[in-house]
């Protein structure tokens, strides 16, 4: 897909995020908007996945370890054709397929149920190890949060990824610098996260602007480093694309009201 088409898709996904969170009156728009470009790049350009090969054992896998960014995943899966936009009306609603956090048993295209932070990356490590074990050529991608990186399990999983030489695994850090109670530095400083990833044995690529589609694509297309798991550090902006949400901690877990949603959708027009 052309760069401009991907950027257009990213705007469409961002509109989906606003639409469903506004309708539900709940959800996590800030951290969904920050990782949107990565998800669009993965689902429309990088991964060999489609609604047609949903059960193909050799399809690539994606785990949204920061499961609260479900609106970004749902918005992307809908654009990719896994279900129709009418499902957005039932986001976070009784009997809906779009649960508050991704549910493998309910939502087509979801490869792991996540939401309990730290677990997604660990499951992704298991998938990559299982793929190696069974000779499955698929690649496993996971998006983790920076706040999530305060969970010890992220580092247990990272140690195992390096130990088992999982070069079929790409961990993508959505580093928007913010979490529920404030900035990372206010809540629990991550220190030099790049140095930590390197020290844990990852092949690290830092992307200066993780909301720039070309930069994201370049990082995702970089050839694998044999014997090492890949870690892509995306420097992103929380609330990206909606002026009044950008860089605001307060939009982590708050839905826009009707008026705010209208303004946001206007800003995200093609």
């Amino acid at each position, binding site marked *: 897909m052309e760069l401009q088409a991907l950027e257009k898709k990213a705007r469409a996904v961002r509109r989906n995020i606003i639409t469903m969170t506004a309708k539900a009156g709940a959800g996590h728009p800030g951290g969904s908007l920050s990782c949107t470009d990565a998800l669009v790049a993965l689902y429309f350009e990088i991964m060999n996945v489609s609604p047609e090969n949903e059960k193909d*054992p050799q399809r690539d*896998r994606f785990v949204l370890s920061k499961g609260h960014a479900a609106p970004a995943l749902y918005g992307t899966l809908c654009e990719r054709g896994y279900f129709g936009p009418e499902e957005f009306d039932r986001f976070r609603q009784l009997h809906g397929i779009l649960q508050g956090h991704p*549910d*493998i*048993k309910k939502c087509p295209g979801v*490869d*792991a*149920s996540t*939401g*309990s932070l*730290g*677990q997604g990356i*660990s*499951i*992704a*490590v*298991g*998938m*990559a*190890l*299982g*793929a190696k*074990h*069974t000779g*499955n050529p698929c690649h496993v991608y996971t998006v983790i949060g920076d706040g999530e990186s305060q969970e*010890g*399990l992220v580092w*247990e*999983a990272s*140690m*195992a990824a390096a*130990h*088992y030489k999982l070069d079929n695994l790409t961990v993508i850090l959505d580093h928007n610098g913010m979490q529920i109670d404030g900035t990372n530095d206010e809540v629990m400083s991550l220190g030099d996260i790049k140095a930590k990833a390197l020290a844990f044995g990852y092949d690290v690529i830092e992307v200066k602007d993780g909301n720039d589609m070309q930069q994201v694509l370049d990082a995702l297309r970089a050839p694998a480093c044999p014997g090492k798991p890949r870690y892509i550090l995306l420097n992103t902006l929380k609330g990206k694309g909606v002026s009044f949400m950008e860089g605001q901690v307060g939009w982590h877990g708050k839905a826009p009201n009707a008026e705010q949603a209208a303004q946001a959708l206007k800003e995200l027009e093609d």
Partner: protein
Amino acid sequence: MEKKAVRVAYGEALVKLGEQNDKVVVLDADLAAATMTNAFKKAYPDRFYDCGIAEANMVDMAAGMSTMGLIPFCSTFAVFAGRNYDQIRNGVCYPKFNVKFGFSHAGITLGEDGGSHQAIEDLALMRVLPGMTVFVPSDANECYQCVEAAAKIEGPVYIRTARLASPVYDPRPFTVGKGTVIRDGKDCVIFTCGIMLEHTLAAVDILAQKGIDAALVSFHTLKPFDEELAREYTAKCRKVFTVEEHSIIGGLGDTVASAIIGHGVESFMKIGINDEFGQSGKPADLLVEYGLTGAQIADKMMNNL
């Protein structure tokens, strides 16, 4: 009588299973020499994954591996059922992944390592999880059957095993979710699970000498629970006792109570660990300390008949 620790049977059963099914992989967290998965490691080194001292990661890795068509058996100490709980709940049970948990060193008969390591709560934790099958084999032969059955169940299974060597009884017919009548009787009934079978058998013999005809029923499956058999023997014997090497809160006793309430219970008593932690000691001394020897069980029953 031959004695063998149930955990040893677990290790042997895995080797046999590995021979029959190449989808079976075994994960351990640096305890292979204790959980006895080292036998599998030796037989199938390329299907054994050591996860290091990181039990939580072991469980979620197993979850991920199961999505690739593998049947992972996670092995560690039963006390870590609590440490792993979020991973077992959200990583495995919530998506209903096909992961098995063979957790050993359960109960006070773990012995010398002490209360920090003696799981008295794992059955309560596991049986409340939707979709989880819970096995508590009473001896080596039943453990072989539980492991074999676990591999055939599509979904999460917990197998609780003990460290202490215990009697090996003749193999009995095995059906998942069905209890086993060990001794028929009419005056009262003991429901038990796990290696307390040895001590409840002793209690039944002591009672017999005193002219009390006690029935003894053992449950290798706590979930799904054989409510029918529990109710049948409750109706027949009326006076009910449960004996377990677990807290009397949330384990076998409460499972039985839920099943038989309103079904002709005349009296009911739970015998187990009374809402307290264990401590270091020789297993035999600990059984005495916590009142779980045959003689002590029989005494408690006599006082309540």
